[in-house]
């Protein structure tokens, strides 16, 4: 009897509401406003106007000049290193053929033009008329 009373008291104690509570599972809001807001540690608590205009580009054409999609989308900047693929006409890049007496080495070309090495297994397959592939 006494044991039951003690157990009941213990159970009652366990069910008491603690003063420090678990506030529940973390939830992420379904929609988050990503519009630029000042950084919390910014001393001025404001953003320069270039942030709030929505784009750093003055026109769609200027945006296209800088846009990238697996490389420059369209590069019309033609100064020095900044010239992108297609930034200059083919004729401006000089002749395709080498000057007389100069020869291109295949190995200087991009890797896709290199001779592909044969493996020993391939050689063996060829020499055995394909039989080695099934050996």
């Amino acid at each position, binding site marked *: 009897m006494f044991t039951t009373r003690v157990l009941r008291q213990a159970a009652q104690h366990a069910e008491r509401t603690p003063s420090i509570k678990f506030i529940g599972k973390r939830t992420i809001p379904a929609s988050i406003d990503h519009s*630029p807001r000042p950084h919390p540690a910014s001393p001025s608590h404001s*953003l320069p106007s270039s942030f709030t205009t929505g784009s750093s580009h003055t026109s769609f054409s200027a945006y296209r000049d800088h846009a990238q999609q697996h490389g420059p989308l369209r590069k019309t900047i033609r100064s020095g290193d900044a010239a992108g693929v297609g930034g200059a006409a083919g004729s401006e890049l000089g002749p395709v053929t080498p000057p007389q007496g100069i020869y291109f080495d295949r190995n200087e070309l991009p890797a896709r033009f290199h001779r592909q090495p044969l493996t020993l297994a391939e050689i063996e397959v060829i020499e055995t008329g394909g039989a080695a592939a099934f050996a």
Partner: protein
Amino acid sequence: MLSQRLIGRAAVKSAFRPSGLPSIVPASRWRRTYATEAEERDLVIIGGGVAGYVAAIKAGQEGMKVTCIEKRGALGGTCLNVGCIPSKSLLNNSHLYHQILHDTKHRGIEVGDVKLNLKQLMKAKEQSVSGLTKGVEFLFKKNGVEYIKGTGSFQDEHTIKVQLNDGGETSVVGKNILIATGSEVTPFPGLEIDEKRVISSTGAIALEEVPKKMIVIGGGIIGLEMASVWSRLGADVTVVEYLDVIGGPGMDTEIAKNIQKILKKQGINFKTSTKVVSGEKTGDEVKVQIDSSKGGKPETLEADVVLVAIGRRPYTGGLGLEKIGLELDERGRVIIDSEYRTKIPHIRCVGDVTFGPMLAHKAEEEAVAVVEYIKKGYGHVNYGCIPAVMYTFPEVAWVGQSEQDLKKAGIKYRVGTFPFSANSRAKTNLDTDGMVKMLADPETDRLLGIHIIGPNAGEMIAEGTLALEYGASSEDIARTCHAHPTLAEAFKEAAMATHSKPIHF
């Protein structure tokens, strides 16, 4: 990277191979691509310091193709290589040396001939540093981060040109770019840093001999930590601070005055409210002209080494920000919004080079948050809850607002303190200097700030940071059981003092 992309192509090819025909052709045989330019990366990070490397690892974990560019030749930035880590090694070992010399006899330990081996002290420091930097390199490999050793600069908004450390040049194209170039020592005008006689924090962790006399310009955290190291090793150290209190921004004034007294007792001299007018190197000596910050009390100090520790400034040199039109504020920080975006939204920035305190753990938090913003669209850093620690002995640590902050903002507060001299564990350790101070809202009891001087304060502040982050009240801490006998009981008792009354004081 290239091969990863091409494996996909090989897989497509193999799908059309007649069934039953075994593959004799290695995957490389199918390398056919029209792309000759660099592969576009999901994230390119400039800087492999704490901000950069943490962002790189996090991005790798999130499945992004990430490249990290670092010019130092070792990862970890200032913190791991010439900052937090090496200084902690020196602080720990110089404390041991000082304790053996001055503090063991009354504890019942008599030690014979004690000698300082500075070379070995530095070697131990270097071992710690190299172990940690190599550890980060391993984590890069583990998380698939491409690591380029070189100096990166913007070629255009998506392309980073890299001058490789081993010679040559390459470029990396990124959908997103993260600037994490950190900070550098702010020089003192008219006193050229040579890292021998006039040193920065970098030189202060690599002196070849213990200076007889040392002047530390700047009584902030870096200055006081280095002053402690060399004072313990035998130098006569004088700290010159322009303000009337030491500790730098954020340290509670009451705490700052207390630690100044403790450090003074340890043998460090202080000249507060004092400005350095000029400095001059003459042979093996450096003469420093000082004056009262208000003027009228000129004095000349002489030392064989002068440490310039007046702060750090953002580092953006050679980054080519002008090529892409990125703006800096009046203190040279990259301007960002709340999601770490610059005005060019795919270029983001974290760490010392932008807003907020220049602390490694703040940079780490931002690094994780910025990757989460890129990948998931949300991130989290609470700038009101970033702890700061000064690793002197005793340590000083704080989180949240100081008493002077609250006064300035006109916020009402209640104070509760508990001294370590009333803590049982501190008494048994014979390390009773210091106190825990809590500030709470008088109406709601919500914690506003926690300030600690004491042994292990840097570890203890973690509990305060968690409480503050959770929006706890001082009563919440007071009602939480703390093990006995521990230093952490002082933390609980300070909470009790704030909420009602402490038991042991």
